[in-house]
């Protein structure tokens, strides 16, 4: 019987790798670089998808109405407000609230430059917000010309948050109309919107007078407790004409994410970037292992001549691959954390490490190293022990 301690061997893979420390360091730098590239690209991609729905997640609604002409949060089309009122006819609908949603030109009060900001107009008495803290803040919007400014907006909109905290009255213009910042909220930017502001329906319509008054962009529907959203959704779909689409809350989030994923090249580009990192990593690891195996070919042939099995030697190369993967992953992970922090700081995008991505990249690096070692092993099969005499 073979006991575990009898299986202990000289750590040949480890010694082979560490015999030339400089080469090992270069290899690890290459693997880490590939890992960092994957972390960045996947982080940007996920950050984009997360960020694109920060506003969507705010609402405490069971069902959402939007216009079929709406493409994404930055291109929302209007639909007749009475469609939303119609849904009240359904016995399971508890309440509805209309939301105005659109981009406006915000003038930076410091530099007087205009920049598009995403504005949401809703009824401050019934804001349908998930976060109770946010719902309390909306009271100040009942006064006309007041807005809540998203303090996570990009700095190009002006030092609004800082001025506001200093107690100054911050006023600026939107489309030629004076507005006053009545408070700060924390929402976050997305690839589509560099900043956000919340205001009341009335203020919203004052800022965009050319808008048809009966049109809204989003209709939020809250259902009675215990009702099945899917059933109501199917019923409303049947009852309403096709100038609106009914979505579940998740459907509303998916609608936005799908736009960025499929209708723009952004998702594709970042996935491709991650794939490039993977390929670059494969090439580097393969190069390292291939030269390593070629370099030690006479030694491997000696081992085979001594009676070691080919599978034993393949195991040695495979372990080299796994060691490289693990040693290359650790610095990639740490650098990834650092870069995420840097990107968050610079772009205000919610880019961060999560367990899924950490694991994905680890698996990718492992696959990369193991696949390369498998390829490099073909060289081992050439090791003819008869050649060494």
């Amino acid at each position: 019987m073979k006991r575990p301690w009898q299986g202990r061997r000289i750590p040949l893979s480890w010694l082979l790798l560490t015999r030339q420390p400089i080469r090992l360091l270069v290899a690890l730098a290459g693997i880490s670089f590939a890992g960092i590239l994957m972390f960045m690209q996947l982080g940007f991609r996920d950050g984009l998808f997360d960020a694109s729905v920060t506003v969507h997640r705010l609402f405490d609604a069971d069902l959402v109405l939007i216009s079929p002409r709406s493409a994404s949060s930055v291109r929302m089309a209007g639909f007749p407000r009475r469609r939303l009122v119609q849904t009240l006819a359904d016995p399971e609908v508890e309440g509805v609230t209309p939301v105005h949603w659109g981009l406006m030109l915000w003038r930076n009060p410091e530099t007087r430059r205009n920049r598009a900001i995403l504005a949401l107009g809703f009824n401050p008495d019934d804001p349908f917000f998930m976060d109770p803290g946010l719902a309390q803040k909306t009271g100040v919007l009942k006064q006309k010309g007041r807005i809540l400014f998203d303090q996570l907006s990009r700095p190009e909109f002006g030092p609004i948050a800082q001025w506001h905290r200093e107690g100054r009255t911050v006023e600026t213009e939107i489309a030629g109309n004076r507005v006053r910042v009545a408070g700060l909220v924390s929402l976050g930017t997305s690839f589509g919107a560099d900043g956000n502001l919340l205001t009341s329906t009335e203020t919203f319509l004052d800022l965009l007078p050319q808008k048809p008054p009966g049109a809204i962009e989003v209709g939020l529907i809250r259902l009675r407790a215990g009702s099945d959203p899917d059933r109501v959704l199917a019923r409303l779909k049947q009852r309403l004409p096709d100038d609106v689409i009914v979505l579940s809350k998740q459907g509303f989030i998916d609608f936005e994410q799908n736009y960025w994923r499929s209708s723009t090249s952004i998702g594709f580009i970042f996935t491709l970037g991650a794939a490039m990192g993977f390929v670059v990593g494969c090439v580097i690891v393969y190069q390292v292992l291939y030269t390593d195996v070629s370099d030690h070919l006479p030694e491997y042939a000696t081992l085979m001549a001594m009676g070691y099995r080919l599978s034993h030697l393949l195991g040695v190369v495979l372990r080299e691959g796994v060691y490289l993967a693990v040693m290359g992953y650790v610095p990639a992970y740490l650098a990834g954390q650092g870069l995420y922090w840097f990107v968050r700081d610079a772009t205000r995008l919610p880019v961060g490490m999560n367990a899924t991505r950490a694991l994905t990249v680890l698996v990718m690096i492992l696959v990369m190293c193991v696949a390369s070692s498998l390829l490099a092993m073909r060289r081992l099969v050439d090791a003819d022990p008869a050649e060494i005499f």
Partner: protein
Amino acid sequence: MAAVELSGLSHAYGRGAMRRQVLQNISLRIDPGEVVLLTGPSGCGKTTLLTLIGALRSVQSGDVTVLGERLDGAGRRRRQQVRRRIGMIFQGHNLLRCLTAEQNVQMGSDLLPGLGYRARRDEARRWLRAVGLEDQMAQMPHDLSGGQKQRVAIARALAAHPRLLLADEPTAALDSATGRGVVELLRTLALEQSCAVLMVTHDPRILDVADRLLRMEDGCLLPPVQ
């Protein structure tokens, strides 16, 4: 049972017009504990013969029995099994550069079945002492002299308890005194194990260590000279 028994062994390289016969109808027998030296001009097929006996090549024609195992028609796996019981010493020492002398020898004793790590390491140390390198155990190969390296290679070959030792010009890279010492050591240790030795050499100064001398020319074994 003979350590090596060949009859009618022939071998050729290449095909068609390029075909070159390197061994012709070789028959020989080596008994356990016998030390046999093989000499002959270069290119006469000595090394090919050694690789065939060492189960490093597949046999083309003729009967080859090494340590009781038929090698003609033996597959990869069978030859690997036979190789475990054969010790080999090469012209270049072929030590693993990333391992110390002790670890190199342990690569040999690691092939012994049913021994724990410590037992295999102690075995390696025992053989290093036997070749007189007890003070160089932790040295890397590039810190050892040519003779020391070759002695490590001998220890490595013997550490797997072989029944047959094949050596291809083990003294080629050594000066005459060192070479002489290495070969005598090889002979003594092999005899203690009643291990048969087949050694290819050009070195006329070591011919007297042999029990028997074989000479080859153009792929044929010359009749023994008394």
